[in-house]
C-alpha cells in the first residue's frame, strides 16, 4: 500500500529510455525557465503578480477552446493571454483598478475553460494537463512554437531592459527623461502574455506563478544587484522546471507538484539566507520610518 503510494511519486525504472523520449521537453522546460527567470523581476517591481494569474486563466480558456475546436493549443493560449493582457493593460492603469479587473476576468476565464473542456470529448489527460501541466503533451510542432515565442520574449526583454528597469522602478523620472513609459508598459504586457502562454504548456495554468514569480521573489530576497537578480532568478527557474520534469518522469503524477515544490523550497532557503544577512536592512527600517515624519513644524513660508 505505502509502496504503491511512493511508487506513484518516485519510480525510476526504465529511466534512461524515458529521459531520451522527453529530451525535447526538457530543453523546452529549460528555455521556459530562462523566460520566467528573466521576466520575473519585472513582474515583481511592476507589482503584476496577480496579473500573471489573471492572464494565465484566460490563456487556459483560449487553450481549452483550441483543444475543443481541434486547432493549435499554443496558438489558442496565446490568443487568450494576449486578450487578457491588453484588457488589463488598457483598463487597469492604476493598481487598484487593475486588481479589480483581474479579479473579474479570472473566474470568467476559468469558467470558460472548464466549459470548453467539458464539451471536449478527447483524452482526459489533455484536459487536466492544461491546468496542472504535463511533460509529454508537448509534441514537436508545438515545441517549435514554444521555442520561437520564448526566443522572441528573451530577445525583446534584453533590448528594452534598461528603459524597462527605469520605467518600472522610477516612472516619473523616466518619463521626465524622455523614456516612452506608456509604450514600454504595453510592450511589457505583451511579453508577459507570451511568457504566460508558453509557461502554461509545461506547468499548467494554475501554477504559472511558480515559474514567473517565485524564482524572482527568491532571488530578490538575497540580492539587490541588477545583474545578480535576473541571473539567480533564471537559475532558480531552470532548476525548478528541469528538476521538476526529471522527478516527474519517475512517477505517474503531473509535473506541477514537483516544479512548485522545488521552487517553493528555493524560496524558503533564500528567505532564510536573506533573513540572516539582512541584519543591516532590518536595522535600518526604523530609521527610514522616523525620517518620514516631519521633525519640526516648518511653517515659515506658506
Amino acid at each position, binding site marked *: 500500500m505505502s509502496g504503491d503510494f511512493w511508487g506513484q511519486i518516485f519510480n525510476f525504472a526504465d529511466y534512461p529510455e524515458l529521459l531520451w523520449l522527453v529530451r525535447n521537453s526538457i530543453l523546452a522546460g529549460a528555455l521556459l525557465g530562462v523566460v520566467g527567470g528573466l521576466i520575473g523581476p519585472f513582474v515583481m517591481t511592476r507589482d503584476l503578480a496577480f496579473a500573471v494569474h489573471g492572464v494565465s486563466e484566460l490563456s487556459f480558456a483560449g487553450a481549452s477552446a483550441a483543444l475543443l475546436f481541434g486547432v493549435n493549443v499554443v496558438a489558442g493560449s496565446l490568443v487568450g493571454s494576449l486578450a487578457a493582457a491588453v484588457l488589463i493593460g488598457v483598463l487597469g492603469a492604476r493598481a487598484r483598478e487593475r486588481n479589480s479587473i483581474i479579479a473579474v476576468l479570472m473566474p470568467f476565464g476559468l469558467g470558460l475553460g472548464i466549459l470548453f473542456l467539458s464539451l471536449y470529448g478527447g483524452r482526459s489527460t489533455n484536459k487536466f494537463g492544461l491546468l496542472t501541466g504535463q511533460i509529454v503533451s508537448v509534441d514537436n510542432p508545438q515545441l517549435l512554437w514554444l521555442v520561437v515565442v520564448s526566443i522572441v520574449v528573451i530577445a525583446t526583454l534584453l533590448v528594452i*531592459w*534598461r528603459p524597462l528597469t527605469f520605467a518600472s*522602478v522610477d516612472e516619473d523620472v523616466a518619463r*521626465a*527623461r524622455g523614456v516612452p513609459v506608456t509604450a514600454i508598459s504595453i510592450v511589457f504586457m505583451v511579453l508577459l502574455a507570451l511568457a504566460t502562454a508558453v509557461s502554461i504548456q509545461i506547468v499548467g495554468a494554475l501554477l504559472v506563478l511558480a515559474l514567473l514569480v517565485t524564482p524572482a521573489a527568491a532571488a530578490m530576497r538575497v540580492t539587490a544587484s541588477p545583474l545578480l537578480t535576473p541571473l539567480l532568478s533564471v537559475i532558480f527557474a531552470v532548476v525548478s522546471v528541469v528538476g521538476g520534469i526529471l522527478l516527474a518522469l519517475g512517477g505517474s503524477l503531473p509535473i506541477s507538484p514537483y516544479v512548485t515544490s522545488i521552487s517553493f523550497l528555493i524560496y524558503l532557503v533564500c528567505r532564510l539566507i536573506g533573513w540572516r544577512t539582512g541584519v543591516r536592512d532590518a536595522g535600518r527600517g526604523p530609521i*527610514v520610518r522616523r*525620517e*518620514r515624519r516631519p521633525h519640526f513644524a516648518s511653517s515659515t*513660508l506658506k
Partner: protein
Amino acid sequence: MTAAVVSLTAATLGFGERQLWHRLNLDVIPGEFVAVLGPNGSGKTSLLKTILGQQLLTSGTVELLGRPVPRGSREIGYIPQQKLLDKGTPLRARDLVALGVDGHRFGLPVSSRLVRDRVDDVLESVGATAYANVPVATLSGGEQQRIRVGQAIASRPKLLLCDEPLLSLDLHHQRSVSELIDAQRQALGTAVVFVTHDVNPILPFVDRVLYLAGGRFRVGTPDEVLRSEVLSYMYDTPVEVIRSRGRVAVLGAPEGYGVHDHLEHHERTSGVVG
C-alpha cells in the same frame, strides 16, 4: 545676451473656469536658480509638468533651449518629491544613478566603462560613495534623496527641475541637498527651477523667485517679491512678511488659498463615493 534654457511666453494655464496663471512670462538663463513658491494648488507642479511636456498650456508658448518642449528630455534632470523606493527594489544606489545616465537607452543592458566612471564621480560628488553598493531601498530618506540628486545631475543636464525635493528631510539633509544642487549649477552652469513651499533652505542660492497665488504671479529677486505689500496684493488679504536672521516668514497667508485645492478635494471625495 545668453539664450534662455526655459522660456515661457504669455503662458496661461487653466482648468475649466479656473486659471492657475495668466500670461506668465519667464526666461530662465543658464546658471540661474529660480525658486517657484506659492500655496498648494497654485500651479507650481503644473508648471514643472508644462516644462516636461506633460501638460499643455491653455495659451502661450513654452520652449526648452529655443524649441517647443518635447515630452521629456535628456537635457532635463528631474528630482521628484521625496518618495521612498519600494523595499525589495532590485537596485543598488549606484544603479539608480546609472539610470540617470543611460536609463533611456535601448540595447543590451551592459553599462560602458565611461558610464561606470561617471557614476563613480557623481557618487563621490554627492557624498554617497560609502553606500554606493547598498540596496537603494534600504537607505534612509535623506540618503535616497542624495542619490536622486546624483541621478538627476549624472547626465550633466542643462536644466534641473526640482519638485519639493526637501520635503520631509531634516534640517541637516535639507541644507546638504540644497548645497549639492547649488554646487551643480555653479560648476556646470545648470539652470535650476526649484518648486518648494519653504524658501528658507535655498534662500542663500536663489537668484529669482516666481511667486504664484490666487491666479496671479510675481517674478523678481527674493527682496522684490517677498514683501508684505506684494504678497498682500496677491493673496488679496493683509499678509505680513518678516525677515529675521536670514530667514523669511509669511504670516497671515490664508491656508490652502488656491481655489484648486477645493476642486481637488471635491474630486477625491466623489471618487471614493462613486
